[in-house]
């Protein structure tokens, strides 16, 4: 199980399309992945969960993953939300 704090740099935050991309990426991995904002933690493989967090630009979120490809999952997802476009 690994955890990493990441700042969201996407211009408009995790809006619907970005959230869908994020979830799609998370689903490529076997590991259980979670995204946490403040005290709310949701399954990163669920689009509704991710959207319910309403993550805006500049928010610091915590990514956690548990499973044999956890490292890969965290790195890929971090890349995605730290992209600035």
């Amino acid at each position, binding site marked *: 199980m690994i955890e990493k704090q990441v700042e969201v740099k996407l211009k408009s935050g995790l809006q619907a399309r970005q959230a869908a991309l994020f979830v799609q990426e998370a*689903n490529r991995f076997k590991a259980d992945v979670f995204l946490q904002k403040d*005290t*709310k*933690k*949701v*399954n990163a*493989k*669920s*689009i*509704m*969960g991710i*959207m*319910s967090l*309403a993550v805006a630009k500049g928010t610091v979120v915590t990514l956690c993953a548990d499973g044999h490809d956890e490292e890969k999952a965290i790195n890929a997802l971090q890349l995605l939300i730290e992209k600035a476009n």
Partner: protein
Amino acid sequence: MIQVIAKDVMEKFNLKLVSGEEGIGRYITTSDISRPGLEMAGYFTHYPADRVQLLGKTELSFFEMLPEEDKISRMKRLCSDETPAIIISRDLEVPQELIDASNENHVPVFVTNQTTTWFSSRLTNFLESKLAPTTAVHGVLVDVYGIGVLIMGKSGVGKSETALELVKKGHRLVADDSVEIRQEGENMLVGSPPPLLEHLLEIRGIGIIDIMTLFGASAIRPYKRITLIIELETWDPEKFYDRLGLDEEKMKIIDTDVTKLTVPVQPGRNVSVIIEVAAMNYRLKKMGVNAAEEFSRRLDDMLVVNDEMDDY
């Protein structure tokens, strides 16, 4: 953590602010309410300062009988650094000593026109529900025949699709994918959707759909007590699944144990029917009819009879 401030109480109950306006952002951390009768008499040893203080006719009429210097000192001690708010009931007149002390220590003082006991119970209910411990789980909450069924399971196992089938059969959707749960009382878990996701369901291949617009107001519920958890998982031939239903598995959410059934999913197994039956069977069990136990008892009787026959 959800916090309640004095201002929330003021807005909820339409209270009139009298003094101590600067303290309007004070946090209320407990649902207990104190009626400081003994404190008015000068006994502050066990003064529960962190509670909302409610002054009624009894306390205030006693207070009126005190000599002037006691009045000042007791109101000063009542307005401690911790006191979240002081509320006067029945529209009684606020003593000048309290106004002075509260302005000095920034403790908000409110007035309500309701009677003390009535207001006290309403305030307790409000604070208890606001301060209830909460959590969020990944799952779908559906009201099936009046039973709040929380469908859980890994991503992609078919939770939302099952919920859609249940809705088509006339059951009600509460929340899809992310369920916010609060423990409102002992053994009482209430689930609701995050405000952003109300009435929405996501089906792979279609996208996000609005259940209320598609199926009407009867297809949704804003919140529901959770009484049964059904965990869906892909059929594992190595795993043992309950064949009798004699034992009950429990899952703990916050402080409450909820009955949990594990249902394997496989092509050809109609999950929504299984969930409907599970909900009805759960109701039946609560009413005292337990098919599994009844069967087991019949079997035992038969075995005893056979045993006796052998003895001849």
